[in-house]
C-alpha cells in the first residue's frame, strides 16, 4: 500500500494508512526524501492518525525520515499519534527523541510556519 504524498506550497504532507508493511515504510522513506529534493520543500508533515500500531520498525523509520530531511535543510513534524499508540510506544521504550510532533495536521502546519519564520 503506497502512502500518498501531497504538496502544499513549501510543505509535503504524507498521510499514513493503517496496516503499513515494512516495505511500504521503506518505500515512503525514499519517496519522501526524493520529493523534498525535487520540490525544494522546506517542511514535511507525516500524518499517522490512521496508524493503529507503531512498533520499533515504524518508529525507527520515522526517525530516519526526520533525520534525513533535516540533513537536507528541511523540517519534519509527525502529527496525529493516537493516545493508545503513544501509550504502547512508551511501554516499548520508543520515544521518537529528536523528532518534532504535533497534535494534528493544523498544529503541524502552525509549527512549520513558525519554524520558517525563524529560519528567514
Amino acid at each position, binding site marked *: 500500500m503506497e502512502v500518498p504524498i501531497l504538496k502544499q506550497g513549501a510543505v509535503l504532507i504524507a498521510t499514513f494508512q493503517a496496516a503499513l508493511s515494512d516495505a511500504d515504510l521503506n518505500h515512503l522513506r525514499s519517496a519522501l526524501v526524493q520529493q523534498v529534493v525535487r520540490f525544494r520543500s522546506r517542511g514535511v508533515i507525516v500524518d499517522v492518525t490512521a496508524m493503529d500500531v507503531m512498533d*520499533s*520498525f515504524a518508529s525507527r523509520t520515522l526517525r530516519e525520515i526526520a533525520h534525513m530531511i533535516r540533513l537536507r535543510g528541511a523540517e519534519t513534524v509527525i502529527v496525529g499519534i493516537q493516545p493508545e499508540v503513544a501509550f*504502547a510506544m512508551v511501554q516499548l*521504550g*520508543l520515544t521518537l527523541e529528536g523528532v518534532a510532533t504535533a497534535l494534528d495536521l493544523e498544529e503541524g502546519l502552525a509549527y512549520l510556519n513558525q519554524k520558517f519564520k525563524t529560519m528567514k
Partner: protein
Amino acid sequence: MARVEILVTISSDQDIVVARQKGRSLALELGFSSGDATLIATAISELARNIVSYAGSGQIALKDVQGSTRVGITVAASDNGPGIPNVSQALRDGFSTSGSLGLGLPGVRRLMDEFEIVSKPGQGTNVVVKKWRP
C-alpha cells in the same frame, strides 16, 4: 481450554501486519479495551518481526485463556531459527544483534502480563506471552 486458536504463518513483513490485525480483533472479541488491544497488537508486531529478522519464518498462535475467574489472551511465537545464545542478554534493553533498536523482547515483556521464553542455539525460539483482561 482455549475456545479459539488462530495460527498465522510468518515468513514476510506482510505477515507481520496480518498477525497483529488478527491479534487485535481477537483481543476485542475477548472484551479487551481498545487500548489493551493496541498493546497486544504492538507486542505481536515485535514478536513477528523477530521471527522474520532472525529466523526467516515461523508462526504465531493466538488463543484465548479461560481462567476460573478471568479471561486472557495468549500469543505464542515459535520458529526453528538459529535460537538465542544468551537469553538474559536478549532481555536487556538496548541489546540487539540485527542492527535494530534492540528493544523487542524487553519491550514485549512490558506490554504484556506474563512472558516466557525458551530458546536454544540451533533449535529455534519459543516465546509465549499472556495478557489478562482487567
